[in-house]
């Protein structure tokens, strides 16, 4: 694994993407230190001030304030924390469930494969947006609920793509050799198959981060996301829509934040796909 992964670090695409991701991750991790204000502190005397480059800006608030006089920059930074927590936890959960089922399905075949295959079919007949909305209705709002909903919707992405990769790897001679050496099924999967499917897994994980960030923004936008006590980019957009004529930047800045972060993960996924030479249909993600 060290070989191809270190090699991928020589790709400029991966490096740039990694830089962008680290930038967002840094803001998310040290939000309390980076942000100039408390994101929910209201300054009703200076509401809807424009960002610094516009006339009439208050130098106290670099990117202006929203309709309740909350600092937009601080809200963007804390929004990054919400987005990254949701994306990382949800992608990890979806990856764990999806890849366990994919390995069982692709390695053992037979009845297990049939059952898991039908399960994926049923799941995928639900459009993802609709399914996540319904789950949020059932689960209620909250950070953990959003994560759970995304895991429950998106495990199929990992399962479907990985399953065929596992089937290909399972047919290799070295897997049969491992079995002949007396490895149990689980040893074979963990020591021989997982390392072979890991590059695909890492690529899919990066692409899933991008998807999860969009889904979280969508759910927060329609008011079924992380809840009112958390700061989320989707919520900022929904709030700013009401005052788009007075302060357009309140709308544009969270949009830019989402596009920047999603593009970073898509670029990373694309760069990893090339560098690790992963067979991945464009449609697969």
């Amino acid at each position, binding site marked *: 694994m060290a070989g191809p992964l270190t090699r991928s670090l020589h790709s400029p695409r991966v490096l740039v993407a990694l830089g962008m991701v680290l930038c967002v991750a840094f803001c998310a991790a040290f939000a309390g230190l980076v942000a100039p204000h408390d994101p929910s502190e209201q300054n009703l005397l200076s509401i809807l001030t424009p960002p610094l480059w516009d006339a009439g800006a208050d130098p106290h608030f670099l990117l202006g304030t929203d309709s309740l006089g909350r600092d937009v920059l601080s809200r963007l930074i804390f929004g990054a924390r919400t987005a990254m927590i949701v994306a990382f936890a949800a992608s990890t959960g979806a990856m764990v469930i999806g890849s366990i089922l994919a390995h069982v399905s692709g390695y053992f075949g037979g009845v297990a494969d049939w059952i898991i295959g039908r399960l994926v079919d049923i799941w995928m*007949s*639900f459009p993802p947006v*609709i399914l996540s909305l319904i789950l949020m209705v059932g689960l*209620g709002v909250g950070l953990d609920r959003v994560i759970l909903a995304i895991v429950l919707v998106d495990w199929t992405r990992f399962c479907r793509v990985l399953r065929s990769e596992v089937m290909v790897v399972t047919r290799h001679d070295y897997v049969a050799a491992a079995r002949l050496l007396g490895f149990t099924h689980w040893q074979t999967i963990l020591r021989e198959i997982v390392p072979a499917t890991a590059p695909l897994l890492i690529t899919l994980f990066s692409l899933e981060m991008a998807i999860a960030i969009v889904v979280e923004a969508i759910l927060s936008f329609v008011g079924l996301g992380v809840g009112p006590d958390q700061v989320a980019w989707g919520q900022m957009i929904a709030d700013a829509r009401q005052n788009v004529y007075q302060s357009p930047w309140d709308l544009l800045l969270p949009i830019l934040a989402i596009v920047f972060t999603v593009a970073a993960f898509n670029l990373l996924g694309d760069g990893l796909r090339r560098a690790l030479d992963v067979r991945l249909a464009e*449609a697969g993600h």
Partner: protein
Amino acid sequence: MLATVVKLIARRLLAAVPILLVVSALLFCVLRLLPVDPAAMSLPPTATIAQIEAKRREMGLDRPLPEQYAMWLKAALHGDFGRSIQFGRQAGGLVAASLPATIELAAAAMILAAILGFGGGLLLFHLRGTLFESIADLGSILLLSIPEFLWGLILLFVFGVVLHALPFTGEVSPNLPQPDITGFILLDSLLVGRFDVFLSACRHLILPAFALGLAFSPTIMRVLRSSLFDIYHEDYIQQARLRGLSETQILLRHALKNAILPTLTLAGVQFGILFSGTLLVEVIYSYPGMGNLMVDAVRNADLPLIQAIALTYCIVVLIINTLVDALHIVLNPKLRTH
């Protein structure tokens, strides 16, 4: 060939029946987990406990869950999806009234996505080996990173708020009549001969359709480019070149024909996703389709309506996928023998 296609469609629709049954059962269970009481919600707040209990019995809510599902399924098969709690009207009727707007929006968006996707794909392929290749490639990744609801907001902001160029709320201007024959406003306005209504509906359709089309074109773009790449490694392209055909002739007569198949398959899959993508775009543009109705129902915990709409989305997506498979067989001779 026709027989094969009909057989395929029949088989796929038959296979869809158990899937729909499981999907509807899952939906039913998830929605029953909600801490809301449909009986209490459909009565005025002054209702007594006894009245609520009576209503619960009347709605069958006191029976075990499987029995409730069987009752719902039996009614649903007769076209009765229950009454919407917030509107007090049949959920099925509400869905039927809002479906045409969503279909019109999805169809317009798909046409745009196909045009932009094919054009962009050819452009990306044309730029191969030039200085612009990686710039165009990065550009397509950036495009891929803007989901439909952000496009919706960006276009609304630029063309609606800043430029005042296009309308961005509703289906037609509020001062115009809305003819209702088939429910499809574009069709109906032509049927009654109101070209002003037709034009207004078209202008209202532009921004939402572009928001969806722009979001779904990059995938088509990238698949067309990569299948063209694959095909240009084939011997017959070299052969054609040796026969003295120009690059344009090779592209149009040989390469494109074969590259279109995988692209079309993907476009079909995309159409299924695009159809559910209408949801947020409709919310942003207050477009009176199924997506708007869904978000309304979700916010008000209107269970019968949520159930009916979600099932409709699933059915439409299943139909789209079946038709795409059928189209695939019509276009690809290799698949017909199976």
